[in-house]
């Protein structure tokens, strides 16, 4: 490997690692939002979110 290839590899690994982390965090966030929306659609709500009847 030339020195340039070490630099490219380092930046490539950093970009891939950070992209994977961000992707995982975004997917996890979407999954929780979807699960919460499903529960609310079934009428399961937090007590503080319930409107007085």
């Amino acid at each position: 490997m030339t020195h340039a290839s070490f630099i490219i590899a380092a930046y490539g690994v950093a970009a891939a690692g950070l992209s994977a982390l961000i992707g995982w965090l975004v997917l996890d966030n979407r999954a929780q939002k979807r699960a919460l929306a499903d529960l609310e659609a079934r009428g399961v709500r937090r007590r503080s979110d319930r409107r007085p009847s």
Partner: protein
Amino acid sequence: MAFIDLANPTRFLAWSARILPWLAGAAVAVLALGLGLAFSAPADYQQGETVRIMYIHVPFAWLSMFGYSMMAASALGILVWRHPLADVAHKAAAPIGATFTFLCLVTGALWGRPMWGTYWVWDARLTSVLVLLLLYLGLMALRAAVDDPSRAGRAAAVLTLVGAINLPIVKFSVDWWNTLHQPASVFRMDGPTIDPSMLWPLLLCAGGFMLLFLALHMFAMRTEILRRRVEALEARAAAEALA
């Protein structure tokens, strides 16, 4: 409003929603500027172009320790004040800190091979950073292994505080032992030894990665709060179905 009120999970969701886009935007802008300057900075007189790896490796190293320090502070919040947001902050920081530590080790290996002639040596600095990565992974595994989230949080907090002894070892390993890794060149009692033409791009990159870390942590905390609400609602729905 008292400062502690901002740590209420519902209030946290409200104010973090307003701050997060600005934090993420600032991270991208500062990182773009820092990396732009890093590639226009002069090459090192000894290392040549390979010094470009420094602009990512050093911020990853600093933030691997910053992440663990945040978790240690959160561990105190869990054990002393039993604050729910401290537990959320602690859990959310672990995968981010582990990623930054992993990237520190890999970019360090890729810098070490052309400069030292080897990817890895078992010297005190490299080994203590590997121990830091294992601590992050161990804490994540511990939380995953204990069913009761409250017990898992307390156990993880105790392990975090025990593991915090590794932080000064990482920092001072290059002074206490004879290591292949170079000693500190920025945070020194007698001032930085690095030339300003490289120091400023390095500090900007570090600032950008710090903002990115904080943005990701805030985002992960928001997700963790949602996860706990989902789990609480599912448990209540199950209890109501049985009643």
